């Protein structure tokens, strides 16, 4: 069923406007809920299923109440102070809690809310305990009431601006990438942990702000204000509105706040049989919730996205690598050299990549053991061996997704074993995956632009200020990415949603994305899987071309034609051990290799 998204948004906005004109008290409620929804969005968007918003709102509410009543701080100071208190708590609990996944995080953060609630009860001197804190007799209350609605609206508008501008910057893109595929994001040079912490912190601060406003809007607090149901409601706003776009949660909060009020006012409670059926508005509310979510299962905001962005701009061209614009491509190579020179010139000659005694075990089973070999700059290395020989494990070790359990990996003269994957990616090692790991719901172009993450210097502040330098960098990144796509014959697909591409095209996008990092070393894990002989051969040519432009390559492949044609040197693994190393010709004659892997005709 087709639903016009703008019509939905217009209906929600109109309903809310009507309500607020009719009953200005509902404006506070609406704005506070929208703010809470944004706080849930901040975490949800970073792939954190956190239900901590209610807990932080409680902290913000009580903190600002305490600052106002006990310390006599003016409201315009007590609210920011409360936000700072939330930030402090978020920093402390974020560290351990953010390691948890999905539902585990959700329940743990629910628990956090419960602990906050119990703490409120247990600190009667500070919070009034179970009997609650009452601001309504405090001097700040009346003053606050007068300014409440517009200061709240202003704060929300400001938050919206921050989210809007951030979403159109590298920060927003990085968060989208993390949402889609945190592991791939990490290997594209994005510090996933830092971003998640940032998102959690932002969520806590926004929730705290909303809570502080709540305290001053309501004038009294008790421990029941932010209990379990509230936490679920807040998450509901964000999901219902759509967690893909920043405006989704606001629409969601607008809808879900307005609906019960409209039902209440529309039905009244003094009419006929409804008189003794006070539950009817609640029942209809639940029904409406279910109906709407069925028609907009990705949330209201998802209705917007499905339309514009994801249309193919033309059919995919066959991979015509012979038409490669060598001159343009040279730019990639030289940039790669630049980036290498920029960051990691410390290494002495001869230590491009060196593995010595590297091993890795999983639950006692050795996947790799005692592996040593060196790579030189600008050469192509093939890594072959039977399934389960440890090839992908090796790639994971070099790219930093796994720490080795033994041994040393030296890259440009520095030991990098155990270093975080995003740092390794930034130092010039890019990779692709055996099972394609694209950011599926992002466009092909966006996927590639993610590769520019480390090179875009403009941070969040620049994005918020919309500095020209940041806009320029963004435009530049897009231009370069489009160029790269063009060279891989993918420019017609730039606007397509990556997940909708065919298997082989996805592989090419993955390679383009890796190249966007301007790597000195490219790790390719079965790049030709799903390609036919012709395409495989073209890929081989392409790899050789990359080498010519200064990129070293380690390629895992079962297509022996490609390996034999492209590689300068081949390493053969079997049961986690190196059984041979040498030129293609030598390896293909090696008895052990024939025995273990190639087989004899």
């Amino acid at each position: 069923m087709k639903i016009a998204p703008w019509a939905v948004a217009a209906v929600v906005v109109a309903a809310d406007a009507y309500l607020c004109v009719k009953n200005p008290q509902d404006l506070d409620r609406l704005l506070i809920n929208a703010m809470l929804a944004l706080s849930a969005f901040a975490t949800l968007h970073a792939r954190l299923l956190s239900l901590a918003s209610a807990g932080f709102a409680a902290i913000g509410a009580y903190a600002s109440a305490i600052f106002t009543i006990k310390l006599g701080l003016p409201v315009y100071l007590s609210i920011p102070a409360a936000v700072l208190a939330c930030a402090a708590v978020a920093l402390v609990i974020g560290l351990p809690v953010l390691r948890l996944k999905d539902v585990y995080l959700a329940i743990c953060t629910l628990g956090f809310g419960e602990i906050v609630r119990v703490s409120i009860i247990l600190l009667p001197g500070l919070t009034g305990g179970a009997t609650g804190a009452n601001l309504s007799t405090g001097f700040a209350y009346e003053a606050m009431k007068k300014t409440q609605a517009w200061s709240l609206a202003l704060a929300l508008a400001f938050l919206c601006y921050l989210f809007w501008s951030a979403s159109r910057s590298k920060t927003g893109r990085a968060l989208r990438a993390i949402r889609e595929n945190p592991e791939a994001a990490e290997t594209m040079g994005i510090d996933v942990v830092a971003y998640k912490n940032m998102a959690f912190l932002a969520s806590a601060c926004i929730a705290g702000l909303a809570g502080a406003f709540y305290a001053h809007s309501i004038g009294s607090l008790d421990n029941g204000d932010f209990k379990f149901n509230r936490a679920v409601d807040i998450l509901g706003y964000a999901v219902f509105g759509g967690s893909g776009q920043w405006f989704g949660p606001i629409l969601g909060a607008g809808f879900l706040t307005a609906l019960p009020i409209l039902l209440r006012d529309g039905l009244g409670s003094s009419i006929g049989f409804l008189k003794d059926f006070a539950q009817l508005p609640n029942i209809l509310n639940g029904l409406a919730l279910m109906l709407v979510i069925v028609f907009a299962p990705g949330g209201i905001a998802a209705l917007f996205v499905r339309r514009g962005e994801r249309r193919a701009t033309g059919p995919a061209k066959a991979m015509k690598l012979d038409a490669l614009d060598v001159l343009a491509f040279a730019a990639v190579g030289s940039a790669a050299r630049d980036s290498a020179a920029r960051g990691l010139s410390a290494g002495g000659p001869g230590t491009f990549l060196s593995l010595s005694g590297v091993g890795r075990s999983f639950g006692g089973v050795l996947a790799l053991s005692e592996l040593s070999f060196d790579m030189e700059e600008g050469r192509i290395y093939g890594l072959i061996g039977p399934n389960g020989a440890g090839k992908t494990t090796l790639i994971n070790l070099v790219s930093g997704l796994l720490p080795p359990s033994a041994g040393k990996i030296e890259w440009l003269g520095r030991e990098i074993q155990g270093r975080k994957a995003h740092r390794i990616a930034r130092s010039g090692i890019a990779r692709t995956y055996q099972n394609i790991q694209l950011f599926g719901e992002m466009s092909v172009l966006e996927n590639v632009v993610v590769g520019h993450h480390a090179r875009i210097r403009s941070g969040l502040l620049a994005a918020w200020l919309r500095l020209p330098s940041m806009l320029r960098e963004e435009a530049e990144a897009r231009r370069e990415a489009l160029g790269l796509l063009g060279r891989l014959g993918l420019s017609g697909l730039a606007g397509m949603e990556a997940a909708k591409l065919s298997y082989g095209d996805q592989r090419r996008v993955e390679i383009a994305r890796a190249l966007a990092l301007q790597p000195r070393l490219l790790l390719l894990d079965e790049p030709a899987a799903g390609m036919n002989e012709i395409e495989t051969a073209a890929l081989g040519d392409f790899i050789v071309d990359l080498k010519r432009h200064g990129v070293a390559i380690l390629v895992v492949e079962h297509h022996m034609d490609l390996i034999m044609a492209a590689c300068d040197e081949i390493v053969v693994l079997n049961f986690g051990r190196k059984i041979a190393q040498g030129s293609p010709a030598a390896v293909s004659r090696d008895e052990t290799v024939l025995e273990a892997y190639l087989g004899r005709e």
Partner: protein
Amino acid sequence: MSLLEVRDLEVRYGSIEAVRGLSFSVEAGAIVAVIGANGAGKSSTLLALSGLVRASSGSIAFGGRDIAALRPDRIVRAGLVQVPEGRAILAPLTVAENIELGAWTRRDAAAEVAKDEERVYALFPRLAERRLQLAGSLSGGEQQMLAIGRALMAAPKLLLLDEPSMGLAPMLVSAIFETIAEIRRSGTTILLVEQNARQALRIADSGLVLAHGRLFKRGPSEELLADPAIVEAFLGKA
């Protein structure tokens, strides 16, 4: 009458047309290879045959009966079984349980099923050794064997194999192709999608060449292997 008759099949994903008006048939007892470039619509065709994606138009007759609108489980029950790309084994279940579940749709006697189970373990002795191991702990090649063995348990009349050699070591690739040939000898018809086109055509009786969602060429394998245009576009130098 052919075992499988596909007429004017179309498959769309939103605005993308993956398969456009494809017609072909598969005779009982044959191996038919489907080859073509990436995005030519091979996997989409198989998914439509298995009912995992709905054909937007066209008919699929299997054993004389139109199955285009049937649910996936009904299609399996009718005897059309697929081993999908990426194997789709049940990682948290044991090998034996995977095999056992392969016979889910069968209603014949337990003894028959048990006999088939032994046949599968005989075909893949590696699996017999690992009966109680979790399927997720198998190597890629063993997982492929398991996926095929499991599909055989459904006693298929037509077996769809999507890229069985993908990601396998060269030694295993030839082993898998040998197995496929052996399965055919036991009477099962096979529709084989392969990127490894040359090898696929070698064991197949005939081939279908797809391009951009359409049938580009069809014919006996030897003919296709000898066709310069096909060699140029899909097989590459030998």
